[in-house]
């Protein structure tokens, strides 16, 4: 199994613990990664489409040239690229225009065949759950975990859950928590926004969302929350100390990246998954995992 790896800006920027843990987990799973190095940021929903679609078309063309599907480790990268890919695949005239105006000069052409998949989807749809289960070395028994998807791993439907069968994607993280042996602590906002996109425009509301999601999870007895989106992580972890002030009480809920979570079940130690780099202390998770070792 081999993928063109698109790590995204945040896994090497604000969440530098994400990139190495994803690479280690891929190695353990014997998933080969060829990193796309000379490609641009997806635009993250901030850049307008007239700029981000050509940039993403270029990324897809590079992967197509390698004959590989793309693997992402960020719900936002996944969502923005999936939406761009949907437009480029479903409208050949639009794709041709972008090829002609932006990619031809570099000798590139996007033919519309590249698949873009988040690691979470790859585990379920390509890798296979039986194979994954056979590699679990440390079932995370007794660890109480809430899922938090990130909007763009669930919506919009045409790009993310285009068929009835793929609507199961909306539940993958819930399923994975139980597959890895942990206890699922469901929360009402698991598919909602973390608040990150409005941190600039409306900080108060953004922090209120952090407080709402992490607070509910904590109240329901979770030890931690797991997310496939590093932007959610930036807000839920990085801004949790400030969100506590909104709520008026301590929350202290560790937020774990998806690859870290999988890595712990595969037998990696918390240190190898770089849990210590988080803003909210992950001590609770570490001590539970140590007890399981």
């Amino acid at each position, binding site marked *: 199994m081999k993928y063109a790896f698109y790590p995204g800006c945040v896994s090497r920027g604000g969440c530098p613990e994400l990139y190495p843990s994803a690479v280690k987990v891929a190695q353990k799973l014997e998933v080969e990664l060829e990193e796309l190095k000379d490609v641009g940021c997806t635009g993250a929903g901030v850049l307008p489409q007239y700029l981000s679609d050509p940039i993403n078309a270029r990324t897809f063309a590079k992967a197509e040239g390698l004959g590989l599907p793309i693997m992402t480790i960020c719900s936002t990268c996944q969502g923005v690229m999936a939406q761009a890919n949907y437009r480029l695949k479903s409208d050949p005239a639009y794709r041709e225009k972008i090829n002609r105006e932006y990619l031809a000069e570099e000798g590139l052409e996007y033919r519309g065949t590249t698949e873009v998949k988040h690691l979470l989807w790859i585990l379920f749809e390509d890798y296979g759950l039986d194979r994954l289960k056979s590699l679990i070395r440390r079932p995370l028994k007794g660890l109480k975990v809430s899922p938090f998807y990130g909007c*763009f791993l669930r919506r919009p439907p045409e790009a993310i859950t285009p068929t009835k069968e793929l609507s199961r994607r909306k539940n993958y993280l819930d399923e994975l928590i139980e597959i890895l042996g942990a206890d699922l602590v469901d929360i009402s906002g698991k598919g909602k926004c973390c608040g990150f996109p409005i941190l600039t425009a409306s900080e108060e509301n953004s922090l209120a969302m952090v407080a709402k999601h992490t607070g509910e999870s904590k109240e329901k007895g979770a030890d931690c929350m797991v997310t496939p989106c590093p932007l959610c992580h930036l807000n839920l972890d990085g801004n949790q*100390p400030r969100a506590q002030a909104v709520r008026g009480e301590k929350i202290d809920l560790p937020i774990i990246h998806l690859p870290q979570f999988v890595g712990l079940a595969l037998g990696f130690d918390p240190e190898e998954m770089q849990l210590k780099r988080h803003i909210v202390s992950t001590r609770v998770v570490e001590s539970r995992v140590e007890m399981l070792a």
Partner: protein
Amino acid sequence: MQITFKVYRKDPEGNGKPGRSEYTVDLSDDATVMDGLLKIRDELDGTLAFRASCLRGYCGECTMRISGKSTFACTAKVSAFTKKGPEIALDPIRNIPVIKDLVFDWDAFLWNKIKAVKPWLEPREGPANEEHRLPDAVMKDLRQVMSCYYCGLCDEGCTVLPVDFDFLGPAALTKAYRVAFDPRDRDGKERLRIAEQPKGVWDCVHCFEASEHCPRGIAPTERIVALRDKAFQMGISHEKVARHHQSFAASVKESGWVDEGRLAVESEGLTNIKGLMKLLPTAAKALVRGKAPLPYVHSKRPGADRIKKIFEKGERERK
């Protein structure tokens, strides 16, 4: 079949404390939830309050939560909700104040917000003595937006309203789109200005919940994004958001990827000492945890020059 409805009750004239009433009624196999409600009201409890009008899914009046799913009572078949047992819970939709039982406050939730976006056309001067005609493509887009029947499902799904009820919400902002994008209006800019005020388009997280919830395929999220793009184009936008977008675009243009350190500082504004001070505790913690190693370096990605060319070409064509 015998179905038990467990219905949310709130009596504004009683002690005001919400509760739940249970009613068991006999219904045919193809009955809708509305059939059940009408039967309860006619035969068991005339005090139960709910809204109903067309009874065929045209009007959007009977929006409610049926065993947790937000939809219309008149088109929801009872059989779709009784697979696990003959019980159905009925609740008012979320994010909206309730007046009585399943009746929520349209004024607070929708009409006041719609009024706030000035939802009427101020006609610009058209051709003399004839209709002001529009190209079909423009009308096709607007017609889709005009098919909104204010059912409230987009606001019900909204991520922002539960933390800030003053947010205008997707339904009202979609109405703003309808007017701002109508070429017959002489002051689309005014509508954009209203929509970009605090509690307007910039408070939207573009999570696509509204689009997913909309039963008419109007795509409110995409409408809000279009309002933002247009506001940017016309040079009207939230000051801090504008700085954030400019910084984001500049770092991708120059290096191929986002410089998060620069983005945080430039979004606050280089002369905004108070704003910058606010970043310090998190920045200090990030340093201690090894999240942001020193010295802070943001290097160019290998394909950066190509990305820059895409920017230059795209920006040129946009002008």
